[in-house]
């Protein structure tokens, strides 16, 4: 057998063919996720004249973007989807409050290595952290997946990234991925499958790997994968009974490009407005005043993110003119951070703790920005107007950098804050 990349292997298996990068195949999906935009999916589904969902057990539906409903329109869309889920007897449904899809699906054991997963959300790529081939699609396409169980895909080229470390103290997966996006550009990995490799990836927790995979879409990637290892096995062992086998790229498989990054002296990184690839080391932006600091999202709302924020803020209060907003990524994260005292400590530091959800990241609700305001966030996009007024600004950084900045009321270096 000639050697193949991870992407070629998963999509060959899913399409029942011997596929190579550049080929277009029709592939059967193993997992199909949709959130609030399920309202659009079911509209298209009905318009297609579809009567039944081919494999309802492959669907996971949940609400996370607008929870609890901030408007009557959002409430009506929730209600419509809830009723549909009941009628169609879709077994895997999480109502408002369970958390952000890209934390809930992995943590509830829905994602397995080697799967072909699609979701009506661009950050579906997050599931690559467990070794799945996962990618975002639109609502109408999801309706076709519900009805037909398959979709067309072009087999992507592979870009392999090799990260050599170890990472310095107070830098994290977020600094790595921001650095890489700054280097490659926001369309530098367009249509490609990105493989994250090297000792830095080996040392990262599964949560840290999710940060890398999550933001691979911010350089245009179709999928971003971290290959399964003992940590993956341990993560999955308590979450699923289903068996799985890792799918790896063969040695000698043809990749489009390999890039090596020496990261042992990486400084904390910040993406400036209004594009994710506008990245500099934190010292270039220290001192810029902020109005809001946001820790949360499918990128950085996990337990280890809240712990590092608490470590920096511990016992200190943020200035009165700064709103520190924290949105744990899921109910489980919330419960754990609550039980171990992290949330209480953050509250004492002046934080506003939101219910688990996406809310402010996409400017849906719970923390929009006025004209002239500036936010530093652990989220994944800093596009103009994303969090509210088109005349506001978003800076992206790690939980450590955001916490240090909240404490000073201006963009700050977490290495200084902890001295």
């Amino acid at each position: 057998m000639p050697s193949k990349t991870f992407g070629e292997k998963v999509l060959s298996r899913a399409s029942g063919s011997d596929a190579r990068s550049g080929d277009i195949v029709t592939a059967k999906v193993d997992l199909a996720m949709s959130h609030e935009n399920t309202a659009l999916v079911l509209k298209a589904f009905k318009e297609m004249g579809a009567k039944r969902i081919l494999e309802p057990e492959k669907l996971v539906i949940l609400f996370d973007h607008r929870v609890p409903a901030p408007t009557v329109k959002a409430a009506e869309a929730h209600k419509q989807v809830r009723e549909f889920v009941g009628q169609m007897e879709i077994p895997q449904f999480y109502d408002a409050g369970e958390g952000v899809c890209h934390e809930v699906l992995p943590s509830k054991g829905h994602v397995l290595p080697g799967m072909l997963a699609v979701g009506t959300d661009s950050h579906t790529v997050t599931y690559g952290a467990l070794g799945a081939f996962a990618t975002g699609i639109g609502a109408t396409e999801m309706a076709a997946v519900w009805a037909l169980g398959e979709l067309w895909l072009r087999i992507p080229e592979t870009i392999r990234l090799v990260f050599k470390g170890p990472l310095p103290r107070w830098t994290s997966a977020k600094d790595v991925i921001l650095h890489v996006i700054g280097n490659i550009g926001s369309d530098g990995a367009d249509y490609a499958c990105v493989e994250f490799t090297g000792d830095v990836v080996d040392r990262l927790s599964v949560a840290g790997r999710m940060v890398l995979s999550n933001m691979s879409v911010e350089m245009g990637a179709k999928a971003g994968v971290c290959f399964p290892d003992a940590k993956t096995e341990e993560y999955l062992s308590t979450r699923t009974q289903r068996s799985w086998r890792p799918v790896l790229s063969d040695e000698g498989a043809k990749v489009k490009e390999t890039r090596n990054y020496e990261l042992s002296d990486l400084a904390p990184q910040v993406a400036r407005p209004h594009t994710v690839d506008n990245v500099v080391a934190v010292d270039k932006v220290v001192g810029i005043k902020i109005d809001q600091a946001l820790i949360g999202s499918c990128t950085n709302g996990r337990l280890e993110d809240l712990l590092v924020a608490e470590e920096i803020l511990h016992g200190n209060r943020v200035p009165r003119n700064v709103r520190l907003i924290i949105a744990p990524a899921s109910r489980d994260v919330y419960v754990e951070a609550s039980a171990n005292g992290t949330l209480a400590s953050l509250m004492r530091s002046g934080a506003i703790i939101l219910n688990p959800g996406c809310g402010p990241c996409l400017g849906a609700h719970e923390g929009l920005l006025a004209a002239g305001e500036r936010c530093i966030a652990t989220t994944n996009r800093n596009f103009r107007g994303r969090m509210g007024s088109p005349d506001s600004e978003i800076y992206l950084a790690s939980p450590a950098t955001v916490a240090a900045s909240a404490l000073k009321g201006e963009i700050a270096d977490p290495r200084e804050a902890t001295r």
Partner: protein
Amino acid sequence: MIKGKVWKFGDHINTDLIIPGHYLDDYSIENLAKHVMEDADPTFAKNVRKGDLIVAGRNFGCGSSREQAPSALKAAGVAAVVAASFARIFYRNAINVGLPVIVCPEAAAAVVQGEEIEIDLERGTIWASSGKELRFKPLPAFLRDILDAGGLVPYARKRLVSR
């Protein structure tokens, strides 16, 4: 053949610029069309006419998977988007909602705002008003079939009926 007046946009026109997330609790595409491109050009939604075309730079439609981005452009009257490159989800979504998308890296430099151009999807040709001819690679046949059917909804309806 598509013939229309050009609206020019730059590189990296993202989905938040095309349709901001805070409007998306509204599931009426006609309502969303009133805000399309609002944060990129506040005059666009008011002045765009049926049959107008967008010509843009690199990475058009980067960001979210929100299908409302191409749907709102289509509902506002946009007949096709020509760009140097597209982000992949926007590209798929556009075809799925029946909005023609054309990859032509030379177009942005060759045409100006307000100019009338002609596009032949089948032959892969754009004619600028000067008569200058630009070439692009036509869509693969199966994607043309989806577009010609009017999008993935009518296309899938046919497939479901034939099952």
